């Protein structure tokens, strides 16, 4: 995934297919510097991957919106009672 730049320095480049596989690492700021720079230069010139990244972020936000079951009332009551029993002074 790297191509030789001048003076022997390796300039990283990602294809679209490679970029989509490092999106989570990119969002977590877990890429090393050459990879992070390569992602940003790719995004600067590739609207398709920009859209993909936006949709990936939208997906992460949407997942956060999941409703869920709470503890049933009897279990919650039992736990509150157990907590109180341990601290009878309060």
């Amino acid at each position, binding site marked *: 995934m790297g191509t030789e730049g001048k003076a022997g320095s390796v300039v990283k480049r990602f294809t679209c*297919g*490679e970029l989509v596989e490092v999106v*989570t690492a990119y969002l977590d700021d877990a890429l090393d510097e050459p990879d992070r720079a390569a992602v940003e230069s790719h995004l600067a010139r590739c609207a398709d991957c920009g859209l993909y990244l936006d949709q990936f972020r939208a997906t992460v936000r949407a*997942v956060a919106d999941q409703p869920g079951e709470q503890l049933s009332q009897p279990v919650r009551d039992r736990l*509150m009672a157990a907590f109180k029993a341990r*601290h009878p002074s309060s």
Partner: protein
Amino acid sequence: MASFAGGALPPDHVIVSALRAGDEAMFAALLDTWSRGMLRVARSYVSTDDSAEEVVQDTWLAVIGAIDDFEGRSSVRTWVYRILVNAAKKRGLRESRTLPWSALEFDGGPGVDPSRFHGVDAGLPGSWKVAPAAWPTPENQALAAEVRGLIAEALAELPPRQRIVITLRDVEGCTSEEVCDILDISPANQRVLLHRARTVVRDRLEGYFRSVMAAE
């Protein structure tokens, strides 16, 4: 006593001293904030909703008994979740339902279907054959509810380890460090599991939005 209606939990040292002092509002706030995620995670290890609730109950009882011994080497949430995961694993073993944590449950291939990109013979190898299509904003309630349902389905169908990681990270808002500590996995492993899970969910949304837009 503290009140946390709609607010975020206070910093760990405040939580710990409140629990040690018997602050019921604080304990109730933790119960109501974390139990949902704990139920979800426990459910991935055990075979029924009732077992999952028992595991969560046992975890809170252990927390009540051990709060004086909490040493602050991790966040309180990480500590609670580690107790939960241990309890859930034991319970899962008793139910003969074990997660292959050490075995790889994925083949190491790419998350996005490679056929969506041009091959090496193309002018621009690795570029999109067909660009991702824009999604509608789910501003209307019906669409938003459908999206929620779709995501719930997608999460339920994920391999357990992916489901646990995406639940902790994206539903419960844990950091990657917390997830690694809770599950005893490496950052790289955590990231692979999370990335695959997110990619699957994004694909599901893409398919759904495509069908919605085609119908319009």
